[in-house]
């Protein structure tokens, strides 16, 4: 009785199956609109990485034709891949939205954060200082992030809307129950919520969605030739100023990145995947998790992510 006889526009009734990507998309849009409606001053964290690229598309779907009801923010470690920064600025300009850049370098310069030293130095931990300072400075009470529960054990237990106290801390033992699709966004001044609309997505879902939506991603996600060196079983990008440890050699390899993070702790993988379709095929066949393969920051201990989240990290 609901047959699509109207002709001009294809009736959804003719395809009663809603794909899992459409179901996940709808859930994420619902989350974003709830946060926009219930919190005073949200911000969307945009790193130029694939997950936050998906968040931007979801925000377009949630709020267009109006502008986003929140600004975008990037916590810039100063050690980002230049291709990613170039992409970030271009995408923001295309969208016509506002971008705030919170700089880890500034946190170091004004004494809020202390740079690690040695060949394994990373600014990964310092990002938390800059993030919390920026949240306080701008008075943000909600921050959207692209984290997913399939990424890591601690994340598997986190809520879609994750409450943080006024120190930015996550308390895994005392999370608010999250029932149906009814989110509790009530907080006191100084507290905030981290919001993860992609909680129920997997890495493969993200790539299939990027492919379905034909979203542009930074070039480092595709196979390219790069000067790299091997450390702890990972291939790191070589650049001016990197201290090599005994015996490490720089060589040229065809690599791509599965995650986009700080150059100092994000490894590339050997790959020939040069198009979105090839990347989807590669991810569907991979036998190693994305953080296990490419993120040194998770290798510090069995509970590295859990510890960082408690301290206010995403």
């Amino acid at each position, binding site marked *: 009785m609901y047959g699509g006889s109207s002709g001009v526009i294809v009736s959804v009734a003719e395809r009663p199956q809603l794909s899992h990507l459409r179901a996940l998309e709808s859930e994420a849009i619902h989350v974003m609109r709830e946060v926009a409606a219930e919190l005073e001053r949200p911000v969307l964290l945009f790193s130029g990485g694939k997950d936050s690229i998906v968040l931007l598309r979801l925000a377009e779907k949630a709020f267009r034709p109006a502008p986003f009801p929140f600004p975008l923010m990037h916590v810039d470690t100063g050690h980002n891949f230049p291709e990613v920064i170039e992409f970030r600025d271009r995408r923001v300009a295309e969208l016509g939205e506002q971008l705030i850049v919170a700089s880890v370098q500034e946190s170091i310069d004004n004494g809020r954060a202390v740079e690690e030293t040695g060949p394994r130095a990373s600014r990964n931990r310092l990002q938390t200082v800059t993030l919390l300072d920026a949240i306080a400075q701008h008075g943000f009470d909600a921050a959207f992030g692209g984290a997913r529960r399939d990424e890591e054990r601690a994340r598997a237990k986190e809520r879609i809307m994750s409450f943080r106290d006024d120190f930015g801390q996550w308390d895994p033992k005392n999370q608010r129950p*999250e029932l149906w699709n009814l989110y509790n966004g009530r907080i006191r001044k100084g507290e905030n919520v981290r919001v993860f609309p992609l909680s129920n997505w997997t890495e493969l879902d993200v790539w299939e969605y990027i492919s379905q939506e034909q979203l542009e991603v930074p070039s480092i996600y595709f196979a390219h030739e790069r000067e790299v060196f091997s450390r702890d079983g990972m291939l790191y990008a070589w650049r001016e100023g990197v201290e090599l440890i005994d015996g490490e050699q720089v060589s040229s390899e065809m690599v791509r990145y599965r995650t986009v993070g700080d150059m100092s702790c994000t490894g590339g993988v050997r790959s020939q995947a040069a198009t979105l379709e090839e990347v989807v095929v590669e991810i569907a066949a991979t036998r190693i998790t994305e953080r296990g393969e490419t993120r040194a920051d998770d290798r510090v201990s069995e509970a590295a992510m859990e510890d960082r989240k408690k301290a206010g990290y995403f």
Partner: protein
Amino acid sequence: MTLDLLRFTTAGSVDDGKSTLIGRLLYDSKQVFEDQLEHVAQASARRGGSGVLDLALLTDGLRAEREQGITIDVAYRYFATARRRFIIADCPGHQQYTRNMVTGASTADLAVILLDARKGVLEQSKRHAFISALLGIPHLVVAVNKMDLVEYSRERFEELVAEFAGFAAKLGDRAKIVYIPISALEGDNVVERSPRMEWYEEQPLLEFLEEVEVAYDHPYDKQARFPVQWVIRPAGGAGESSDYRGYAGQLASGALRVGEEVVALPSGLRTRIAAIDTFEGELEEAQAPMSVTLRLEDELDVSRGELICRVEQEPTVSRELQADVCWLNERPLRAGGRYVIKHTTRGATAIVDELQDVVDVHTLERASAPEQLALNDIGRVRLRTSTPLAFDPYRANRRTGSFILIDEATNETVGAGMVGAARD
């Protein structure tokens, strides 16, 4: 046609094999990655395993949990087969069991209830079945586990089926129940039919999970419910879209079409749907659970919290309601208590007028007029709200029949409510 995404919940304690079952589903569907497997192999060896992979360790969570050997909170797990994606809400059986089970069950299409073939129908399994039924989960799968320890006995299996069915009869006839004899440890009837139980001729667990229909497969079975989340109004100015006014939201149930006469509740304003917008363009029809933006023919004062539905298909609009409430907080619920209520996209204040009864989850008997509802208690209450709510009975509609209660002072989510019927 079936939706290619299934959300299901499991509950249980460490020793009934729940973690092993989940580990088995992940492992046999080849969703376990090499680095995860390496972690499990190392942990198995460290904990004195005999060289056999302990699949339960795949679901290992937080450090505090590993240290104490318990599970603190609901964990969400993901796996996929060629036919469907799955989201498991993996609920611990111990501490705060009801709170966690209710949370996991609230979004589930199906519950897997584990029985230990040696031990029979334990309290925890009954509690899980009761909560699953209360939360309106349409399908229950009773997995009789550890069949390897009862010599794959058909007699024992049938005994347990009869025992469980006797209990389930008290739950009402809402949920469809399927019984499957399995061994999570050995893999019998999990992914493949077991050659050791040829007397069992039905589907193995995974095949059943792949084929079972979920609620959204039949959007026309339910009346349309569209809670307005957000009004899209681009700022006026030079832009051509400055007179645009769209009502954004997610269809909670049913379907809406352009041209239909609709009413916004509780305001009662009537109009027709002028257009259904999405980022991709206009649709002739939208179905649950799509997120869309409606434009209406008349300019009405409709805002967040209003519910749009077809005329003649309206839910109850009332400031008084009766509901089953699961209490989630250490500070008990008492008559006279005042809370923030969140129902669909609407917030209001609610006052508890009366505690009518509390359920004994072991016997399913209801004791009337309790003093309070303590943490993990489930009981029926009567509430009054500061503004009218537009709701359906939870039995008819899980989205428009559910609400949460929030403590005004601490902002904690303290109660989960399911609407019975409006007060007479």
